[in-house]
């Protein structure tokens, strides 16, 4: 539902970056979407296409990278992908494991044609 707003924020970020690189043209923006970010990738991609259509940014490519939820065991420090909401460490059986990734909603990079 809020993906159009997220798409707008991404485009604003690209526009701000474009001012810092007046000699080049930004062709692609890479965004990390965490499993826990609450953002639907298809809806975001669609919202972005609608947003840039018939504008100077029409050819700008939005590349989304999905970041799964990873946990780190508080006992043995093993890092594992959390599936089925099971927080237990598969190595040592400890239940207290901490989330170390999956909340991302970050602009990772942009590609510029010089």
């Amino acid at each position, binding site marked *: 539902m809020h993906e159009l707003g997220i798409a707008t*924020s991404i485009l604003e970020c690209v526009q701000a970056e474009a001012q810092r690189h007046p000699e080049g043209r930004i062709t692609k923006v890479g965004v990390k979407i965490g499993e*826990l970010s*609450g953002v639907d990738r298809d809806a975001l991609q669609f919202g972005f296409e609608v947003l840039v259509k018939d504008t100077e940014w029409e050819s700008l490519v939005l590349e989304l990278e999905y970041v799964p939820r990873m946990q780190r065991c508080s006992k043995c420090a093993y890092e594992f992908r959390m599936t089925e*909401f099971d927080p237990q460490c598969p190595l040592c059986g400890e239940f207290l494991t901490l989330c170390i990734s999956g909340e991302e909603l*970050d602009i990772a*990079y942009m*590609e510029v*044609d010089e």
Partner: protein
Amino acid sequence: MNRIAVEKKVLNENQLLAEALRERYRQRGILCVNLISAPGSGKTALLERTLERMDKSTRVAVLTGDLQTENDAQRLAKFGFPVKQITTGGTCHLDAKMIGKHLEDWKLEDLDLLIVENVGNLVCPSSYDLGEDAKIVLLSTTEGEDKPLKYPSIFFKSELMLLTKIDLLPYVPFKAEVARENARRVHPQMEIIDVSSTTGEGLDTWMQWLAARQQRAKTKLQSVGT
């Protein structure tokens, strides 16, 4: 082609505003909580019972968000505390800018507790930091026990889950134990309090939770001041 690393949050602007709000609260020892749930889980009813139980000397204020109408603000204003409605006009969540704008004509010095009632929605509000100390998610017994699994983001980000409408448990197929288990699968450290805004059950525990968090906000302020 040249690839440049950016490493910036998509909602960077909201994040900056939220951090500024958080700092303003911190400097004054204000506790800010952000109440989030699906529409109809009982956020406003809980706030009515909460304000009713507040000592009249409590310096509490409420910002309540909806797409349209002033209904919630009218319901909450009768308890004598400052209440302001934020009508988003269609936006499905509150953001830090809206909070900042609606705080403009309130003196933060006069507040100890700020309660934000978000727009009824389990998805979008989870992405927007409002500068709160804690997000609180409500799940009512008239919903499904699997909501925490369907909407993990908000259950993961909330410190406390209030299981509301527990007076209806004898009449609905909802299994409270399964709901709690699902919530803890998504967020093992989550605190859970069962409440009923109709019978008052659990409200003392909720009020104590709020008081303890307020105390913590004040203590932090003092330790910074010394």
